[in-house]
């Protein structure tokens, strides 16, 4: 049954073949976890212990060490999912759809954390949990897009159809995100003067370092979680292939 793997001689397809990717991902995961912990500790040390207070925002600014990385990740992950969707639709590779599906829950959590930390930052700074600021609103819509994607792929039983339909939705979403962002921004500036800008104060170098390290930690974390998820998906979907059967028997020892 797995003779179709042998058809693909090109390196791209070889990498995209689940049978080769599965053990590779297994070997990489511990390294990503270690990197995530390392970067996270370093980032927390710098951000929470070393970095001085912000003269405008007091200690409350320290929320940005989570808020900014989670916001970045939520957008990056969506873009990466859309990238995999495009690859999957163009080349009909099986792995790309699984990649997109494995990333989605983490992306949605990142969007949620970004909103949560945004609210907790906004309350002391703006005096309100929520403002219809362009960034917050777009982030909320991004969360809706994630939820829509997960709901759609979950509702379609056939895995390959779910991948393709989800892929189209991702591409449609990616076209829409800039439109949504700019329309919300425009709407927002018409309604009220744009509120406090997060990066207005020239950020001290040490704060920037803290943020970059935290962002790296979130990157590594997301990769590790998504790879674990994709490995489970591979086992599930390729359960009839010989290599998965061998793999399962190996695990039992």
């Amino acid at each position, binding site marked *: 049954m797995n003779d179709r793997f042998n058809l693909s001689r090109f390196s791209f397809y070889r990498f995209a073949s689940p049978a080769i990717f599965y053990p590779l991902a297994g070997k990489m995961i511990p390294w990503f976890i270690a990197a995530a912990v390392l970067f996270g500790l370093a980032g927390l040390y710098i951000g*929470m*212990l*070393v*970095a*001085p*207070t912000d003269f405008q925002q*007091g*200690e*409350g600014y*320290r*929320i940005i060490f*989570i*808020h900014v990385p*989670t916001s970045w990740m939520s957008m990056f992950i969506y873009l990466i999912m859309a990238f995999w969707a495009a690859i999957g639709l163009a080349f009909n590779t099986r792995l790309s759809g699984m990649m997109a599906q494995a990333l989605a*829950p*983490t992306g949605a*959590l990142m969007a*949620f*954390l970004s909103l*949560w*930390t945004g609210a*907790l*930052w906004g*309350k*002391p700074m703006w005096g309100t949990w929520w403002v219809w600021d362009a960034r917050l609103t777009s982030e909320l819509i991004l969360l809706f897009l994630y939820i829509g994607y997960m709901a759609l792929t979950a509702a379609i039983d056939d895995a390959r159809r779910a991948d393709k339909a989800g892929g189209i939705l991702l591409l449609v979403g990616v076209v829409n995100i800039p439109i949504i962002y700019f329309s919300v921004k425009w709407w927002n500036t018409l309604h009220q003067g744009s509120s406090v800008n997060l990066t207005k104060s020239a950020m001290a170098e040490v704060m920037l370092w803290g943020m970059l390290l935290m962002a790296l930690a979130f990157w590594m*974390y997301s990769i*590790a*979680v998504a790879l*674990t*998820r994709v*490995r*489970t998906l591979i*086992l*599930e979907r390729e*359960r009839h292939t010989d290599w*998965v*059967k061998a793999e*399962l*028997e190996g*695990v*039992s020892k």
Partner: protein
Amino acid sequence: MIYWNSFGDFLAMGGYGLYVWGSFGLTALVMIIEPIAVARQRKTTITRLKRQLRAESRSHEA
């Protein structure tokens, strides 16, 4: 090197303790729960697939 004078200061976060620790706490919680959930899902999937595999091979022998 370390900015804080005392641990109490650190916890208080200049009066922003609730907001700062609320953010970090929930993020930490999510980053603990999500890996556990993913690992558990992996484990249950593997046991389920193994059970299926065993059932299949038994029915082949029969």
